[in-house]
């Protein structure tokens, strides 16, 4: 299965990954090989089969609407690369 550099670039954009030209070529090749392999499931007859999204048949896992203490501002911001007051700071976003 052929993956072009353009395909790789599109997917990288979606995934917010920046690749070097060398990486793009390598990934195109490797992903092409892997996708070529996984293509084999296309040949599997799955008519009338329901997809599995959960490994064990469970349903209705709930919690009650009762307040549990938050971890607090200090812990919430503890790992932040950059803060401004109580905010997480990021490069300015223009909307």
């Amino acid at each position, binding site marked *: 299965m052929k993956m072009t550099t353009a*395909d*790789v670039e599109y*997917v*990288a954009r*979606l*995934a*917010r*990954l*920046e*690749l070097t030209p060398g*990486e793009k070529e390598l*990934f195109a090749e*490797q*992903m092409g*090989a*892997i*996708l070529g*392999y*996984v*293509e*084999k*499931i*296309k040949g*599997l007859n*799955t008519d009338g*089969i*329901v*997809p*599995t*999204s*959960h*490994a*064990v048949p*469970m349903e209705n*896992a709930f*919690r009650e609407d009762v307040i549990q203490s938050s*971890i607090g501002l200090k*812990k*919430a911001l*503890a*790992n*932040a*690369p*950059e803060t401004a007051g109580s905010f*997480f700071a*990021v*490069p300015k*976003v223009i909307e």
Partner: protein
Amino acid sequence: MNIIDMTIHELHTALKGKQLSSVEATTAMLERIESVEPQVGSFITVTTEGALANARDADQRIARGECHLLTGIPLAIKDIFLTEGIRTTCGSRILDNFIPPYSATSWEKLRDQGAVLLGKLNQDEFAMGSSNESSAYGPTRNPWDTACIPGGSSGGSAAAVAAREAIATLGTDTGGSIRQPASHCGCVGLKPTYGRVSRYGVIAYASSLDQVGPLTRDVADCAIMLGAISGYDPKDSTSVDTPVPDYAASLAKGVKGLKIGLPKEYFIAGLDPDVQVAMDAAIETYRRLGAVFVDISLPHTDYAVATYYLIATAEASSNLARYDGVRFGHRAEADGLLGMYSKSRSEGFGSEVKRRIMLGTYALSSGYYDAYYVKAQKARTLIMNDFMAAFASVDVMLTPVAPTPAFKIGEKINDPLQMYLSDIFTIPVNLAGTCAMSLPAGFSNSGLPIGLQLIGKPFGEETILRAGHAFEQATEWHTRKATI
């Protein structure tokens, strides 16, 4: 007996009987770690001071007469488990400086008993790998032959047990990441049924496949660890509310009349001859113990690897979107927001992680979702059905764990597809959501361990533990030690 060679149950007896203190045991382990770490590289973080503090607390508890099975036992856990206040990297640069504000439920359960934390173990980055070579903190080496991989992604967890750097460890298994390194390192490793153990506080790779499990020196220890970490957790919606049996109580019941299935798709031509020999011997051993063998078929086995690499990568691509440099983790210098995201992620993630994120993103993307992701979910149903049908006529299944013993470091790193294909025997169990255990079953001609896999029914951990224990009692593979 050397402290470092003790099992949990042996050490527990010694601690309870006041022959030895937890501080002594912990000190011995820390010395051992210092001594062999340069050769093995099992640890990312060794928590020396913390371990000794844990040990002192444990000794006080024991002095008060409170000695649970794991009180004072020095353990280590994969760096995928969040530990409050202790750096947790998941084997990745992107979390190099991450200090979690909370702990994983499974670890907390061990802490509550008074276990001692020696440190955080090395792993393939974000649990993606079968060789521990993709860790950002250097590879871990197999204690039986340091030129070889220990297996992955819980490579550090297995190597630490084999090198006697920890009495027992915790790992995670998504496609074989506990069982395969356990097999390559000659220890016991168990992946519980999905939903048996809480995933809260475990860094997610593939949410519908990940499970937490123990790696230990023998099956009895495995039963102890499993009992300690299992149980319903209201913080995990996928956690199953079903009672936890006393796994140790049924260990010695033997295997007379036990129906063991041999899936023909797992005993293919092309299996490494040493693995074939070990399997044949294991089958013979079980026959002598009174087990009965049944030939079965899991017809969709051939689609398992493809199915796994679509589902797991799709879920992973979404689970890893939170690593964006905004609230924690590595943030790169960049001018705008888009640049900040892309650079932080590209600098922080290694190439295997990037490759899987790309694959998963592709499988979910518009135009491909039905052909890849949904199709794989349907294939998964077929694979699950295979297992359920087979379990109608057998109690457990016996298979190899890996097609070959541990390969050399660097041997498969440039051929990701080859690496993926080596997970063929372990992956289907994760897809089916059921339980399986790897235990020592022999050695290759070059002295590398070979494990056998026992696959059980969903929530049938008792049966595979019992079968494993019987095998262990009848063999001596598990008593051999790496000479490191």
